[in-house]
């Protein structure tokens, strides 16, 4: 009990969630939507795309996400460490599919919280990506579906299950070249809408809308770096009338080594043979 009383705030929150879940009709929506103050975040993301056979690659992403604190406005403290892996299938040069899992480690960023400092989160995800050349640029459509099990930081908190439905539109426009090739600076505007569903989701299907602009530089065919700024907003799970916002600085490293033997690499370009 002592523990309980100590974490009464979390208990109340949890009860609220449980209440929400179990008694939907009792959620109280504000008469006007409310926007929380935006938080600031910094993400360092690595994207690996490791070719393992003619048609298959290993998608290996590790992200380090930091959130602001009172003391350090931008870089703040570590929020999540995010490991996303999948086996990808190259259908053609322009179309590929992936299926894999995510282990996300969530750090408790609430300085006042006495709950567990770290909880894991699991996802199964699959993704369908389509690319289209347009003039000197490329545009991309990405459908990503995630099956997600999350839990709160509170002790013994139950996993809740949700599905996420994500669509991202992105373009890459070369700035100093007529096409995307090494030694090219490009700008990449992107917009991603993340919808969610599940028993816990009552009035907040729009989890996140992310608007990002990134500036990237292709170093070699196998290495690209990029950096950009993202604005995002979305309904909180607790109350569909309350929107969270954030500004995120994102830094990316894209690498795509090929671990196949030389003789298996050739011919490199003919996927349709």
């Amino acid at each position, binding site marked *: 009990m002592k523990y309980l009383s100590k974490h009464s705030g979390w208990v109340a929150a949890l009860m609220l969630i449980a209440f929400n879940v179990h008694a939907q009709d009792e959620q109280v929506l504000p008469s006007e939507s409310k926007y929380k103050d935006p938080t600031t975040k910094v993400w360092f993301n690595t*994207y690996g*795309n490791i*070719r393992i056979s003619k048609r298959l*690659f290993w998608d290996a992403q590790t992200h380090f996400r930091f959130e602001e604190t009172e003391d350090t406005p931008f870089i703040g403290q570590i929020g999540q460490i995010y490991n996303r892996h999948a086996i*990808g299938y*190259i259908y053609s*040069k*322009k179309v*590929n599919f992936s299926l894999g899992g995510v282990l996300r480690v969530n750090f408790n960023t609430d300085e006042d919280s006495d709950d567990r400092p770290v909880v894991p989160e699991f996802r199964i995800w699959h993704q369908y*990506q389509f*690319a289209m*050349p347009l003039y000197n640029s*490329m545009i*991309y459509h990405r459908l990503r579906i995630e099956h997600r099990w999350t839990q709160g930081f509170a002790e013994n908190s139950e996993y809740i299950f949700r599905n996420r439905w994500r669509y991202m539109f992105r373009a*890459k426009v070369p700035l100093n070249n007529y*096409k*995307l*090739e*090494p030694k090219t600076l490009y700008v990449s505007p992107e917009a991603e809408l993340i919808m969610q569903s599940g028993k816990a989701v009552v009035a907040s299907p729009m989890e996140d809308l992310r608007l990002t602009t990134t500036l990237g530089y*292709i170093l*070699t*065919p*196998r290495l*690209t770096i990029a950096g950009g700024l993202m604005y995002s907003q979305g309904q909180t799970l607790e109350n569909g009338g309350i929107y969270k916002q954030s500004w995120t600085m994102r830094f990316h490293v*894209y690498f*795509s080594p*090929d671990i196949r033997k030389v003789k298996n690499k050739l011919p*490199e*370009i003919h*996927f349709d043979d």
Partner: protein
Amino acid sequence: MKPTRQPKFLAVLLLGLLFSWSIQAQEKLRYTGPFQVASFVGEVDYTYQIIDGDTLLQGPFSMKRSNLDALLDQKDKTFSFTGAFENGFPNGPWNFQFGEFESDQKTEVVGFQYRVNVDGIQHQAQGDIQMGRPDGLWTISEQHIEDSEVKETLFQSQITYNNGVPQQSFRIEGKQSTLVGRFLRDGLAHDSWTLFGDESTETWSFNEGVLTQIRLNDTTIAVFQGPFKAARTINLDKRFSKILKLQLKKEQADGLRDGINKLLAENAAHYRKLDDILSQLGKSQFLPLFKAKVPYYPLDSLERNGLEAIQKEYGHSSKVAEGLLENTQLNLLRRSDNEAQFLYSAVEKFKVSFLDPLDKVVHFSELGILDYLDRDLLAQRLFPTGKPSTTIVIDESERTFAGPNANNFNFEGEVMEALSQMSSYAKVSLDQIAAILYEKVKNEQQQQEFVVLEEQMIAQINSLNQMVDSLDTSGTYGTAILHIKSIAENKLNAYSSSAATEGKLEEAKQLVPCLETLKSLSQNLAALPERELEIQESYKDAVWNPFMANLMEEEVKKRITSAYRNVLIPFIVDEASGELDYGKAGSLNRLLTELHERMLELREEDTHKLERKLRKEKNPNTILELFNLQPLEN
């Protein structure tokens, strides 16, 4: 008893028969099948014996050929020989037929045979042969056949022999004339041989083989009018007609060309054809020997030695003269060089006045008629306008030519001696002229070589300059090319200011390839940017970039391209900008070409080990070795 005795008797009879057959079979063999005699190929049927390993024809012989397909297609050459042999000698009646026919391709059926009409020529010869020699009456004819009928007799000879020796009177018919004459028992021509022609009559009068006079229509020509110191019996053949021809004046000889001479020669040709066949099959002396007597003037030993020397010297001199007269360079040179023209004319004179008569003598000697020619007559025939002098007068020049030691030669003596002297004189003179003229030609050739080489040099330096002018020479390659250009110009200047000595031609011969190499080296250097681009392109590989979803060109084997770009090319350009002799320019030139080819090869090869070794390697010669190229020697 009877039934038992009869079989016994029969058995004995059979045995006896078998025995005699086997003896026969051992002795005589028969061959039928394809066969070739002289130029005739056909089907043969004959019997023969093998005695001491030799094949002796024995018994009947026949050989023939005819081809209907060939006849219908174009023309057929047919022949048929039939006769018999005895112990390898033709013996008994013989018949020869040779035909050359074509057909109008019209056929008709008569009885059970197809008949084809033919046109052509038919030769026929028939008569008896006694042990290889003609015996009795021999008739040889040549007929023109039209529509399978004799249209015209072109030639017919009828001669009677006694064991190979022509006898009594004979008759040879040509197309337009007939020769009638007779022989003595020993084959010597005798009495009048007369050719009755349409327009003329020619009569050779023999007296016991000696042709004393010829009467052609109304003219009488005396031939061998005795008395002679000596006379010899020779065959009335080509040799005789040659002797006869030399005996007569040219216009007389010309008048006789188509008469008896021609008919006799035609007759001889027919006999020779038959003899060729018979002598291949067995032993035969089928050529009939018409005989005549001619005066005999044998060469003495001195003359014989002189003749041998003449033959040798003439062979040499005629080659020298021919070499000079047909030398194209000399023929060009003599147009501009009076001395050369003078000597050339002298050679021509020697040819006409000395070599041509000597040629005749040599020819007479080969024919074997020198022994039958009166020496004075020979001198007359060889030198109708008189013997030449040692001093050669050149018509178009005021100068005369005299050979070495001209005074030692004397052509006035007896004809064979004079000929011998002339032959020696012609030889030494021609040798001397040849020595002078060839030296002249050689100088001229050198001059021409200079002209050609120097023209080449000018063309080379011009083309080098043009190339340099068309290039952007601001970069390092440009500097090297300008450097090479100045080297080339310096070399050319050095050559042109050097004195015209013996060695200058050699210098020119070396300078041409040197300039060529320098030019080629600058071309290779000028091509470097383009080649580097080619290598850069070839060392690219298309890589699929999963993040961009596109293909990107990626440079591969970077250590190799880097060694090429950053070490080897600067090294070569540097070397080309330094001191440069012919050899080094050649090596650099070769290296540039080979390096480029090697780079393109390395792109395709497995170069893992090479790439590892190239790490941190900065020494160009070591890299060249690693590339399997010849390092540049300093």
